[in-house]
């Protein structure tokens, strides 16, 4: 469950701007979505293998080149679907909470 939400967060983040792994980590940490950083890498690789993300190498002023991730077309389409099911989910949960 949490994993699915985490994926959703990553895709949402990348829909706003391309980012490299450490940017994504900083964002997710600031909202307490991840505890250990290692969680992110298998996820990113899997999303990339599923062709939802792509990456490119970009030179950095400090240190070696960085892997910048970007949303693919397939990724954006998938994200739109997720957006919809997320809002639906929120509405459903809210309704149930109100009943109690």
């Amino acid at each position, binding site marked *: 469950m949490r994993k*699915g939400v985490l994926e959703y967060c990553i895709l949402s983040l990348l829909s706003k701007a391309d980012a490299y792994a450490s940017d994504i980590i900083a964002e997710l940490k600031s909202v307490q979505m991840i505890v*250990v950083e*290692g*969680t992110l*890498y298998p996820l990113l690789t899997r999303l990339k293998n599923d062709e939802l993300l792509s990456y490119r190498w970009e030179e950095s002023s400090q*240190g*070696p080149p960085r892997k910048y991730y970007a949303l693919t077309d397939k990724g954006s389409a998938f994200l739109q679907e997720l957006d919809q099911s997320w809002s639906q989910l929120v509405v459903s949960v809210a309704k149930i909470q109100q009943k109690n």
Partner: protein
Amino acid sequence: MKKTISIHIAGRAFFIEEEAYENLQAYQQKLENWFRKRESGAEIIEDIEARMSELFAAQTPANGVITADKVREVIETMGQPEDFSEAEEEKAGDTEGARESTSSQLPLRIRKRFFRNIDDKVFGGVCSGLAAYLNMNTLLVRIIFVLLPFFSVGAVFPVYLVLWLVVPAARTTAQKLEMRGENVTVSNIERMIREQYEKVRAKF
């Protein structure tokens, strides 16, 4: 006074205390064991290393030395592989995760390979290698090879030559064990070396 080692992590050079280096290596080995069999494992390890390198660079001053505390801190930040991969696998289904974890505990499956046995050869060791592969008597395989042309299977000559060229010779101890279909484990390699030692000693 502490000894330091100079290392490279993902394209950056560092000095690291010896103890810290050992801890770091142990962690890396753990990652390696964990991800080796998983899809895109090498890539994930590479990404994690790049991140660790970045963390070290950000937290140690120029020409500074990475201490054991720093290594502990960075490892804590990254987390243990079982922490972050476990959650990953619940998605793939519990049964699959369970199967994978039991299989990784078992010793590696014995994989037999066809090597030329150059320790016991007439020409290229093809027959004795084939005998080891098929669990047959070496002499029997040789007799079959010699007799085949008489039963109008003359093709056996070129076949032998091609096998000689194509099949690798079992040179290392690990290859010799693989040829016999034995597990490449430290104890087996040790046993093999002892046997060879005994053989050489018997000659003198």
